């Protein structure tokens, strides 16, 4: 069931690319550039930044809302990035004992830098998830090629993605075959499993070669055909410029302080 779900999830992203109002018309290169600006700006915030990260996070949520993407979906897709960051930052609260005042309580500043680390991890991964949801994986590959990455690397990315589906399909077939021909522990030992893996490799390679031969027969030359932008070029390049300008403002201006000052009054 897990394999079937993985295969379904993998295919769904290509079968049903997100229809995003306005954004789907943009050149994927513009989306990649905007995502890169977003993540680099995020990483440039100081290590104790917490409230400063909220406006960029909200910007991402607004874009997601415009694109009919749910925040929970983006958050779920971002979770795999957390364990390594959580592990490495776990020592921050112990090693950084500088006092930090929050709600009239003083805590170790390490807790704040730890929270900031996790928040940055989530937001950066959510931005990457947003990019793939909007542009689709083939769109991202096309954008990478358009931005100058080598054709062989981009072809390798696309082949890997295609062969992953083939591998999962063949793996499912072999698992069903094994289930129908085994009972209890019989037919499920390490010897059978290693032979199944060998057969899986050969069958996947067979299908991959047939797919490649069909591509060659249809004129595939090793590069993506046509790298023309999908939408209006001016609008496409306005988007990353606009996002970069907003991000620069959010990084430069203590935005939350200013808004809060409207409610609580300016500092004396």
């Amino acid at each position, binding site marked *: 069931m897990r394999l079937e779900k993985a295969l379904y999830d993998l295919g769904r992203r290509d079968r049903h690319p997100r229809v995003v109002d306005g954004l789907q018309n943009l050149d994927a290169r513009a989306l990649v550039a905007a995502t890169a600006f977003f*993540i680099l700006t*995020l990483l440039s915030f100081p290590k104790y930044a917490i409230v400063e990260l909220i406006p960029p996070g909200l910007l991402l949520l607004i874009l997601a*809302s415009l694109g009919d993407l749910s925040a929970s979906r983006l958050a779920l897709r971002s979770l795999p990035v957390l364990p390594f960051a959580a592990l490495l930052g776990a020592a*921050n609260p112990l090693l950084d004992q500088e006092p930090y005042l929050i709600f009239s309580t003083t805590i170790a500043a390490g807790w704040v830098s730890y929270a900031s680390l996790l928040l940055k*991890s989530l937001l950066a991964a959510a931005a990457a998830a947003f990019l793939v949801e909007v542009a689709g994986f083939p769109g991202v590959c096309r954008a990478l090629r358009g931005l100058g990455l080598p054709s062989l690397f981009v072809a*390798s990315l696309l*082949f890997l993605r*295609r062969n992953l589906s083939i591998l999962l399909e063949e793996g499912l077939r072999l698992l069903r075959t094994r289930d129908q021909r085994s009972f209890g522990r019989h037919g499920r030992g390490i010897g059978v499993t290693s032979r199944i893996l060998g057969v899986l490799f050969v069958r996947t390679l067979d299908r991959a070669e047939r797919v490649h031969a069909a591509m060659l027969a249809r004129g595939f030359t090793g590069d993506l055909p046509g790298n023309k932008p999908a939408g209006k070029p001016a609008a496409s390049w306005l988007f990353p410029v606009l996002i970069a300008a907003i991000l620069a403002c959010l990084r*430069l201006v203590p935005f939350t302080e200013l808004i809060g000052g409207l409610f609580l009054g300016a500092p*004396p």
Partner: protein
Amino acid sequence: MHMADALLSPAVGLSFWAGSATTLALCSRRLRDRLEDRALPFMGVLGAFIFTAQLFNFIIPGTGSSGHLGGGLLLAILLGPEAGFLVIASVLAVQAFLFADGGLVALGCNIWNLGFYPCFIAYPLVYKPLAGKGEGRGRNLLATLLAGVLGLQLGSISVVAETFLSGRVELPFATFALLMQPIHFAIGIVEGLVTAGIVVSVNALGPRSPAKGDGASQRPRPSLIPIVFLGAATILVALLLGSLASTLPDGLEWALEASSPRASGGTGPVPPAVGLGLSNRALAGSAALIGATILFDAVIKAARSWKARRS
């Protein structure tokens, strides 16, 4: 061993991106004329296998930790170092884009850590001289074991160095290295054993396998030294430029410092008794912005459902 974006400073992330991109470009250029037609699907299938293998973690006895295969050495042995590097880079890119495993800025570091060391250090310097032409299972096993361990040791110390240079976590260099190296020594042994087993199986495919030592055509193989030198030099130059630039605050940092209430007289929201803190104004401002975003989202959803009902 996948780095996450938040663990890196922009300077370190971009430096390793520059090094990995340079190495990718050099590898692609070399392979363009040398790669056989049949090698592309083989590369794709091997990449898919490595991708799947990396999803399965194995327990490392006695450490309470787990690890997964790197796959760089296996790819270098079966496809040659350049094609191996290209495939491991693709695997890591698909993981970053589709599964949020590692980040987009951290992708450069991950490609370098899991691809460069096994393909351009462990394979040519340890595996090739020890394994020779592949005769003798014992010799092959020893070569893959040593190369697997070396590749992962270099990759894990590279993770420690990148984290240390970025300064985002408080772990001291020596403590972090002492935590990372022994675990990756154990993972390296498993990687070596599994790699040896798979190499024997794939070579048993005989003439079907395009993996004949170097995976490309039988023309003499050019030296790997330019790739290693240019890749490493790009990172060093980028890091040097980054460190020179960071000795002074950049424009954004300077403006932020200048505009912060603390810098302009100490009468700001942070009490003078404590150096760091959250101001009430910042919290109120954040709450207002979050409220406004929720409202915006609700309006967009309402407009969308109204539009759907009308059509």
